[in-house]
């Protein structure tokens, strides 16, 4: 059972290497041979595969008869590495998985660790508000990338340029609050790394105003654009039965008209207290998924506005759990040269309190202990259900951390979406899944 995987392989009798500029030769040569089957290896370095995804297609003319995705090119051993780092350091690893939606990786991991610690109910309200705010802005940013690159792949280059323009402003806000544009390690077990900086709310307001002004452009560009619709409508169809069979969640499931969103059905971070709608579409195709993503940006904006109100009401409240045995001791501050330690904190530990210094040193180098157990936590990431299993052996490091990335699960359905279709629709199908290979391969 274990050694005969490659027995069925047939030696190819002719291999073409397309380096660009020699397409007509290949086409002519293939036409001359009159051969019915051609195997195309697309990727792993291909601009339309959302990173290093490899697709192996068996073609009959331009029709895809078989397609198999090959993954693993971006496997970086994040799960294994996390076993050698403290619980808090783990955030800095898992944020790098799905790098388009890093805050969801952090959030799901921290929620899981908090469940293990039994402090889910102790997380300060303001910390949860900031988490929701960051996640929803990140959802917009991620959907913008999905729509932008998806548009670019079918030739709508402007959609990509405007999407990155908006995303840039969101990342600017992330930079202002967390110090980094991506890979924030901002959400920590027990709360968040620091509060919204001075002027943060004003920046947020202008960001919301900007998005409100510019999000309608996507609808104007795409919604009724005949070329766009021709390329997207009826492509990569997956009905509810198929979604259930393949375990599909997120925009793909919602494009079948099924209202399933973990923010509503299994709320976390206080989502049950926010007012927003779950967006569905009923066409089961790539166009429906695009419309869902676009509309979800508006729903996220609604949540962001509610967050602003709540942030103003909770001004000055803590953003980290009160238990000093868990809470990260340093309060970070934003200096003129970027983010750094708070002067007040450094003065306290270096000049005033030996105990505070010892405590700071111990919790930063050793970390905290997490009671023995195993938990599963899921959040609604922009792509679907992002799950995290963590096992603790009672020590200062995860015994095992496993992430269930939606893209990993959803890429399995590429053959279902593409076989029997045209090769040009493969890119549309892959874009409608919106996989991010950093998350798929971890």
């Amino acid at each position, binding site marked *: 059972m274990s050694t005969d995987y490659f027995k069925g392989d047939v030696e190819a009798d002719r291999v073409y290497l397309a380096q660009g500029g020699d397409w007509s030769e290949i086409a002519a040569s293939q036409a001359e041979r009159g051969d019915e089957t051609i195997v195309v290896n697309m990727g792993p370095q291909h601009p339309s595969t959302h990173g290093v995804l490899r697709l192996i297609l068996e073609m009959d003319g331009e029709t895809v008869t078989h397609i198999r995705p090959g993954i693993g090119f971006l496997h970086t051993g994040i799960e294994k590495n996390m076993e*050698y780092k403290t619980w808090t350091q783990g955030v800095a690893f898992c944020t790098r998985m799905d790098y388009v939606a890093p805050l969801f990786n952090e959030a799901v991991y921290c929620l899981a660790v908090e469940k293990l610690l039994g402090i889910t109910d102790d997380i300060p309200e303001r910390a949860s508000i900031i988490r929701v705010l960051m996640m929803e802005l990140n959802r917009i940013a991620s959907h913008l990338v999905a729509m932008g690159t998806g548009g670019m792949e079918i030739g709508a280059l402007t959609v990509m340029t405007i999407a990155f323009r908006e995303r840039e402003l969101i990342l600017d806000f992330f930079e202002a609050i967390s110090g980094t544009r991506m890979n924030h390690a901002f959400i920590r077990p027990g709360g968040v790394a620091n509060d919204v900086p001075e002027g943060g709310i004003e920046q947020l307001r202008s960001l919301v105003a900007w998005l409100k002004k510019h999000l309608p452009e996507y609808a104007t560009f795409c919604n009724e654009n005949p070329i766009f619709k021709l390329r997207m409508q009826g492509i990569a169809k997956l009905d509810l039965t198929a979604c*259930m*069979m393949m375990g599909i969640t997120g925009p793909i499931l919602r494009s079948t008209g099924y209202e399933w969103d973990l923010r509503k059905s299994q709320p976390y971070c206080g989502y049950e207290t926010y007012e927003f709608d779950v967006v569905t579409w009923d066409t089961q195709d790539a166009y429906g998924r695009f419309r869902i993503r676009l509309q979800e940006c508006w729903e996220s904006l609604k949540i962001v506005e509610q967050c602003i109100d709540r942030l103003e009401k909770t001004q000055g409240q803590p953003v980290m759990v009160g238990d000093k045995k868990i809470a990260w001791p340093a309060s970070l501050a934003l200096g003129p040269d970027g983010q750094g330690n708070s002067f007040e904190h450094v003065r306290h530990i270096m000049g005033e309190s030996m105990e505070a210094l010892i405590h700071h040193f111990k919790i930063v180098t050793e970390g905290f202990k997490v009671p023995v*157990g195993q938990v599963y936590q899921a959040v609604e990431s922009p792509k679907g259900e992002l*799950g995290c299993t963590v096992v603790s*052996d*009672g020590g200062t490091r995860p015994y095992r951390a496993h992430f*269930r990335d939606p893209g990993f*699960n959803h890429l399995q359905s590429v053959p279902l979406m593409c076989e029997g279709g045209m090769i040009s629709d493969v890119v549309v199908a892959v874009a409608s899944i919106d996989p991010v290979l950093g998350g798929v391969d971890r």
Partner: protein
Amino acid sequence: MSDELTPQTPAPVAPVFETKKGMWSRGSGDTSGYGNIERRVAMPGQTAGPFGQPWDAVHARATELLPFLDGGLVLFDRGELTIFVPRERIQEAVRAFRDDAHLRFEICVSVSGVHYPQQTGAELHVVYHLLSITHNRRVRLEVTCPEGDAHVPSIVATYPMADWHERETWDMFGIEFDGHPGLTRILMPDDWVGHPQRKDYPLGGVDIQYKGATVPAPDQRRTYN
């Protein structure tokens, strides 16, 4: 193929992680006087009901449909129910969990492995997370197998989405899923030797020299576990 697997007797017990000595860091001299303390770390959880609804209903229905689960290990911890299933019955179990109207776990969201080297005879665990959209609830099934005979029947026939998850578990833990349609490596290169997420597989890395001092590789550093 599942008939060939040796039935597991006695019933599985909660995984023992390890026996820890002392109270502080390992690998350094212990001056605390607690160096001879020995602790056995095992998975916690309530093993007998009532667990509260809906868990009692799920457990009762599962036991009714699958009588072999009666008397088997169940752990209820932090609001999550884990049912340990004998590995030769896992295919039967997942079919019941999916098809029965009272259980109706439509989706197997994740299959992953955990390696407990200290649990002799059941070193490798496969953890299945099932989600019922109909009833909006989750359950965890766990299967164990010994390192020397790392075989678990595949559940792909019931849950097609488990295909890649099982391949990943094979890749990372070396658990062979019998009956899987194409059990090949998925994340590591095809010709890779070893299964990286086993506990005895080193992390790797090199010592770092900085200003005359040497910082050991991450897996060689002192631990405070």
